[in-house]
């Protein structure tokens, strides 16, 4: 990684932390908060690409585990990762990497719909695939209940996908950062 890559990694880790300044709304039943922070993973992947985006979110999760209160609502510590929302948080680096990878693969042929599809795949499908079973295990509820409880995230996550598509397109025009893979 070049110095520029390291600075980018730090930038997107900090951006994810800053998105936590928006106050979270905690869902009853499953006890996982809705935050703007999951946008951090999507933005990092879509703007910084697979390697830098994935590393940025990995760094963010590492700092949270080390006890820094960077999660929405000033939370931090290993307790976050061990808690019901831990599956989602641990998937953020993977989501950022996958989103970045798909963006770089199809950089030349990106359309609005393709971008939205990539973000839904990495930011929603992949993340929920680990997040929901994690809730079921940690909160000791059955899988169906965890899935229904998590459905409350869907409207917010859909709105985040739309926002990230708009932001990523505008940023790409103003300041291109991705290299086609």
């Amino acid at each position, binding site marked *: 990684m070049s110095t520029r890559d390291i600075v980018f990694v730090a*930038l997107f880790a*900090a951006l994810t932390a800053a998105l936590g300044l928006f106050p979270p709304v905690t869902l009853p039943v499953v006890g996982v908060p809705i935050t703007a922070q999951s946008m951090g993973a999507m933005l990092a992947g879509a703007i910084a690409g697979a390697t830098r985006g994935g590393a940025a979110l990995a760094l963010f999760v590492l700092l949270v585990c080390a006890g820094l209160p960077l999660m929405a609502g000033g939370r931090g510590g290993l*307790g976050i990762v061990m808690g019901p929302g831990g599956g989602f948080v641990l998937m953020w680096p993977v989501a950022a990497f996958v989103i970045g990878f798909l963006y770089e693969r199809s950089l030349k042929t990106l359309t609005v719909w393709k971008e939205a599809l990539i973000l839904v795949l990495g930011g929603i499908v992949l993340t929920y695939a680990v997040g929901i079973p994690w809730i079921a295990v940690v909160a000791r509820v059955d899988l169906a209940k965890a899935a229904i409880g998590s459905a409350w995230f869907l409207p917010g996550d859909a709105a985040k996908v739309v926002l990230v598509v708009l932001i990523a397109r505008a940023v790409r025009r103003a300041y291109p950062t991705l290299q086609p893979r």
Partner: protein
Amino acid sequence: MTPYVPGESPVHRCPPGAKILALIATGTALFALPRLDMAVVLALAALAVTGLLYWIARIPARLVLAQLRPLAWILAVLVLVQLALDGWLAGLLVAARLSALVLLAGLVTLTTRSADLIEALQRGLAWLKPLGVNPAKAGLAIALTLRFIPVLAAIAAEVREAQRARGLESSLVALTVPVVVRMLKMSDDIAAAIDARSYDPDRAGH
């Protein structure tokens, strides 16, 4: 982020690595107990010990309150939800656990110079070397991240003001795009500045 309060107390002199480990251990223990009554006792004990440590470190009460203020209404909502759903013991647990964790994390940053904190984290990351992670580069990334958070907040406030003048303050896209673009430009300048000072991560950190 919380400022550093200089001092000579045992809490200040405790090695930063030990403080981070204690924070991680406490954070895990507070969420690990399955029985509600035991968890409440542990959370209250942690809160009491944290208070004692603040007293030993001679942190002014004003700063203690400053740690809790951003948390106040989130805490109130959480406690109300828990009270309504699971009874007062669960509400007490949530309140005690969250304030203990935030106060303890705050104490670490209040009593440790950030350079020492980053150096300790960097040393703690040495085990990642076989995975191809350079601890010195990770240390630089950590230092930059902590520095970027307040910078981002300042840029966001500036952009919000500019967009308000254009009547765009309610558009999230009009707020985020300029912030991200400005940060990307700044990143290139910072990277150039670091390189201009002949920073070599393969030799750094000695």
